């Protein structure tokens, strides 16, 4: 067991990463934050629309899209990957709808069938064309965020912007934030009251497919860093934690971003202590933050519930005594 868990050394865990030459650590932290923020913001709307598991499905099923894009373009270019992922995301949605509408199989089973099949197809493509596709099974499972500082940097004139994937993720995050600000009202209405949205003239199908497209793009740009399955955590954990702390959507969106930042930085410290997958560690810290919110939330935490339950019990006893 001693071998498994290295001894805790404050300096090594908390100081060293920040003072290392080259500043590679900062890029990892920034990448983690960007992934968690973009996924979390989109994820909030999935939670509101009870589509959390559609997010799960799409994050698995973009894999064949990415693999096929690799095979055709022969590179990790952004555009082929985005296109492949968009196509895969769309195909998933269509398959789920088709199975659900054309047969008596229920939606949950349809989701389960669609994404496992596509994911299986993706894994087989990656295994069979291993020499041609620069992706491996481990990357699919938990990403390669630690290699972010080793990537080529993007330069704008003489200004060095940062590693390619961080810049790409940054752009995706900015676009996500911009879209959410721009269509804030439409998303709000269609998520909380679909009937009202239709009567106001918003096209529910367009909003649905736009959200799915945004989801596919966010998922695919996060994919390389955190892998297919941990993306699900990035989608759901921030929003779920935030919604335990507030009922107002603007506050929830703000808290989502805070959760993303905290879990990213804490996760990386955990990973440098335990020497494990940083993406996994980020999610673990995100889950720890969720548990804290679950227990200590001032409005509806477990402690608050327990306290309320006890005081109402006491009140009952008092009234009974008074009655007697």
């Amino acid at each position, binding site marked *: 067991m001693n071998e498994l868990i290295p001894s805790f050394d404050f300096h090594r865990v908390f100081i060293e990463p920040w003072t290392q030459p080259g500043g590679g650590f900062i890029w990892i932290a920034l990448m983690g934050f960007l992934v968690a923020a973009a996924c979390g913001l989109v994820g909030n709307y999935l939670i509101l629309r009870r589509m959390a598991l559609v997010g799960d499905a799409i994050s698995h099923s973009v894999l064949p899209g990415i693999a096929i894009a690799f095979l055709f373009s022969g590179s990790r270019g952004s555009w082929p990957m985005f296109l492949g992922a968009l196509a895969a995301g769309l195909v998933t949605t269509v398959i789920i709808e088709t199975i659900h509408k054309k047969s008596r199989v229920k939606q949950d089973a349809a989701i389960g069938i669609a994404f496992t099949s596509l994911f299986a197809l993706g894994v087989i493509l990656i295994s069979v064309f291993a020499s041609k596709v620069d992706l491996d099974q481990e990357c699919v499972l938990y990403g390669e965020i630690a290699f972010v500082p*080793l990537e080529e940097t993007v330069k704008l004139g003489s200004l060095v912007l940062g590693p390619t994937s961080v810049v790409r993720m940054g752009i995706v995050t900015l676009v996500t934030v911009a879209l959410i600000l721009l269509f804030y009202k439409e998303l709000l209405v269609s998520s909380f009251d679909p009937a009202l949205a239709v009567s106001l003239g918003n096209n529910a199908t367009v909003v649905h497919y736009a959200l799915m497209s945004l989801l596919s793009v966010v998922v695919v740009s996060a994919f390389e860093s955190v892998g297919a399955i941990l993306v699900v955590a990035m989608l759901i954990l921030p929003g779920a934690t935030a919604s335990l702390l507030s009922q107002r959507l603007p506050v929830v969106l703000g808290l989502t971003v805070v959760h993303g930042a905290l879990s990213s930085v804490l996760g990386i410290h955990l990973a440098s202590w335990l020497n494990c997958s940083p993406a996994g560690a980020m999610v673990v810290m995100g889950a720890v933050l969720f548990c804290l919110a679950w227990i200590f939330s001032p409005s509806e935490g477990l402690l608050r519930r327990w306290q309320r339950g006890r005081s109402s019990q006491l009140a009952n006893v008092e009234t009974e005594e008074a009655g007697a």
Partner: protein
Amino acid sequence: MSLSLAPGFATAAASFPRAHFRPLCAIVYLLLGATAHAARIGDISETSLWEQAVRFFTFQDPAVRYALIGSMLLGISCGLLGSFIVVRKMSLVGDALSHAVLPGVALGFLWNMSKDPVAIFIGATLAGLLGTAVVSLIKQTTRLKEDTALGLVLASFFAVGICLLTMIQRLPTGNKSGIDKFLFGQAAAIGSGDVKLMAVVTALVVVVMLVFYKEFLVTSFDAQFARAVGFPAQLIHYAQMLLLAFAVVIALQAVGVVLVSAMLITPAAAAYLLTDRMHRMLLLAALFGMMAGALGAFLSFLGNNLPTGPFMVLAATAVFTGAFLFGPRHGVLARWWRQRSRTLRVQRENTLKSIYHVLETREFKGEGVSLRELAERRRETLEEVAEQSQELRTHGQATLHEDGNQIFLTPDGWQRACAIVRNHRLWELYLTNEARMAADHVHEDAEKIEHVLGEETVRELERRLEFATKDPHGRSIPGLADMRKGAGASQRDELIGYGRQT
């Protein structure tokens, strides 16, 4: 290249010279070598597909036997348990449970640093059950909905598992373990100990299913009734979850954590499309699971050390697609065919009705109806009407004369025409008399219902309307006597016309 193999995260994170990656690559290479060894099927890359297939089917290699038997056993138990979660609309609970077992697998491995089937079995089962318990706890104590709770638990548990796995792989003994095979499955890594465990668990699942079939059935389809008649529904639910966890855990080795939920859902969903009886669904699901397992093991054996899980899943998906398209009752083709023949029948009946109307306007004088008359009545072109009359002829409801310009109804066609007009007018009368609808509002409704009213309903309507003979618009409702006119004509040599009075 995976991070898990890096000598240390902190060093990998810092940007350091490329040379440091050499040992890393070496470790990757070693791990791949260890994998091939773990597969125990030998040097596969040198042989052709055909030789591989022959080797598979001669069953000489014990590894092949174990892989095949194991894959079929897991198919049976997953199919049986999967049927219940599919009909209970809990498919994604299976997904969450199967991801949540990963930390248990890692802890089971750490127990004595080896791939001990029993330790991993216990660890994984406990982790899976803990996962489902956390899901229901979150549902009970927060505002979060079930889908969010499932996704949250699934991903968080999986992340803990990933952290543990990457820590194990860093250990000096960890590399040779083959524990990474639990992610995507490798049937070739199934050993004799695994097969024994799988056989025991599958036998347990089958026996429990046989003994408690009634209890499982009632709680799955009508939980309230089950409680009312005194079944311990909660206890049965937990028993099902426990068995589900067992089925998932024995499938891990061959299918892998990521895809095991497909072995629960897909064969059962395919069976669900083919039958309406639970016991048949269970049998079919077990059969499909077994087929998918065997086929997946075979296909992955053909390739060079390919993961087994994805192949099993695609085999199951193929079965599902077959059932989805060609299922005799619920298949897409069968539905399409039924819909098409219904549309054609309605079209024929509308033509018959128009012919009746033409005959009615000239007070049933003369036998044949010309195409032109019919076209005017239906407000359609001559070609369309000609096509419709051909359709009637092929179904024996009319004969055509004078180069197809004159349509004569056969007794069959006449009776059907009478029946449709009767249905229409009876329904109009019923709506105006009993439902108090205005007479000019009832036509549209009657247009639809005339094609689906059964004989029994018609008798009931006639009784309620006291055998009225006039519809709300004052036209007479054809009765049995009118129909018989046609029947009498069938005794003549040539079947023409609705029949004159003989």
